[in-house]
């Protein structure tokens, strides 16, 4: 069972990223995923958080108390949620928007997710799919093909999100998660 928290601010597509991962696991791999979310009342700018549990059998408790993997695409989210990571877990942050705190007991990876979406892909709103790509490479929790299919189904067969996802797969430093967790 793998427990993830994806976080950022409203408007970054955090919830959508969680939904795409869930669809990939459940619809395209026939496994189990439960996704919950919370966000502020603001349309943009408030804390956005989605909890995702992925497993090979039925999942009962749907929330994530201590995440194996935490993603923070904004400093506010990083500050508010860095205690929700399991000590020794994997923390992925956006290099541009987040300043790392060495006191957080986690393997912290700072990656240019948003800059890649803005400057390379010329599509800032695809940063979330870029982040999904990073996650997939680093955790191996779901096959890249399953995610591509989920993106095609939700956004369309030639959607730029596919390119953003593929770029994210390469942006990651490689697989860092022990397979025993999945």
């Amino acid at each position, binding site marked *: 069972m793998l427990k993830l928290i994806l976080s950022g601010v409203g408007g970054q597509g955090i919830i959508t990223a969680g939904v795409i991962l869930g669809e990939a696991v459940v619809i395209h791999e*026939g496994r189990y995923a439960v996704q919950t979310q919370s966000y502020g*009342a603001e349309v943009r700018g408030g804390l956005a958080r989605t909890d995702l549990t992925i497993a090979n059998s039925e999942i009962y408790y*749907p929330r994530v108390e201590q995440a194996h993997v935490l993603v923070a695409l904004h400093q506010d989210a990083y500050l508010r949620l860095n205690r929700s990571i399991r000590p020794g877990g994997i923390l992925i942050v956006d290099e541009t928007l987040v300043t790392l705190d060495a006191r957080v007991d986690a393997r912290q990876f700072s990656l240019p997710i948003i800059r890649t979406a803005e400057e390379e892909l010329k599509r800032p709103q695809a940063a979330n799919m870029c982040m999904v790509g990073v996650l997939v490479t680093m955790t191996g929790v779901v096959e890249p093909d399953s995610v591509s299919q989920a993106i095609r189904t939700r956004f369309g067969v030639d959607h730029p999100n596919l390119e953003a996802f593929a770029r994210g797969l390469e942006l990651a430093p490689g697989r860092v998660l022990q397979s025993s967790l999945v």
Partner: protein
Amino acid sequence: MSERTLFVHGNQACVEGALYAGVSFYAGYPITPSSEIAEEMSVRLPANGGRFIQMEDEISSMCAIIGASLTGRKVMTATSGPGFSLMQEALGYAIMAEIPCVIVNVMRGGPSTGLPTQGSQGDVNQARWGTHGDHAIIALTASTHQALFEATVRAFNLAETYRSPVIVLYDELLAHMRERLTLPEPGDLPLVERLRTFVPGGVDYRPYLARSDGRLPMSDFGGVHRYNVTGLYHDMWGFPSTDPVTVNDLLHHLHDKIVVRTGELESHREYALEDADTVLISYGTPARSAMQVARKGRDSGHRVGVLELETLWPFPGQLVRDVCEKARIVIVVEMNMGQIRDQVRAAVRAPERVFLANRVDGEFIKPKDIGTVIRLVDGHGV
């Protein structure tokens, strides 16, 4: 994977269940955390030959589904606590006039406007006694999307079978979390269609002549029969009556058609109850935390079992009594101040062994919260 496997939120699971059951009319006023039901219905129903009306409030929503049901359609509305309060008067009318309809209440924290975006199970007793006067009601609930789909289908079936409003109660967490839903093929789940009268037009039709099985054959309003529908006590033609025998018989009919069928209406799930000395009784998403506690407890040698109720009203007192017979302690897990705990206490032989594990702060009840109550009751402190 099959195209019938979805990864959706609970409100969509409810909509899919209603469409599977054959809903063709929805009237409602959107309110968090039920709004996605109205949103989805507003797209799906017109596309399938049905009707969707956004009403000016919940009073009119309830009245609109009553009218549409009388014309022969399967109908529903969905709301949350404040809207459910407004529906109570017309809900009583639907009970008295025996009009099939499904009311979904996605529970948020109350009273009043309370906690719009956070979960609660505070409306359990409101579902039972929110409308005035002696009456019986059916209320179903669920803890997973698959179970919610099935409960919604069942709600339509029971509404049509017993000519009664049926309430589907679930909490905000189930409404908004996403998980697997596998849509059954048409025909996989039984559907109940409305019992219609064989009496032809122009002949004396008695719309409120009850059958011994509690069912009443209906005639689509606006069709071949003219008949009276009223919230007053009425005779078999539907005309108001104060005749003591008529009044007595009608109230007994309204009560008995549901209450004497408590066993048939009852639905539950259970886990490891055979030898359980600690019985967790729960319903809705808190049952998921109870399951987590029981699974972990069993792994470490504790005899913990779970009874998950899927029919809340009529309350399955006999089932609860039987399950708790040999239990050392019974802990009711719910997100209110003990609404089902009170029912359990009234049902069992040893009410002093019944305890409550609850949360009422808008946060979802954690396995740890239940564990703390078990430790306390067992005398191990917190």
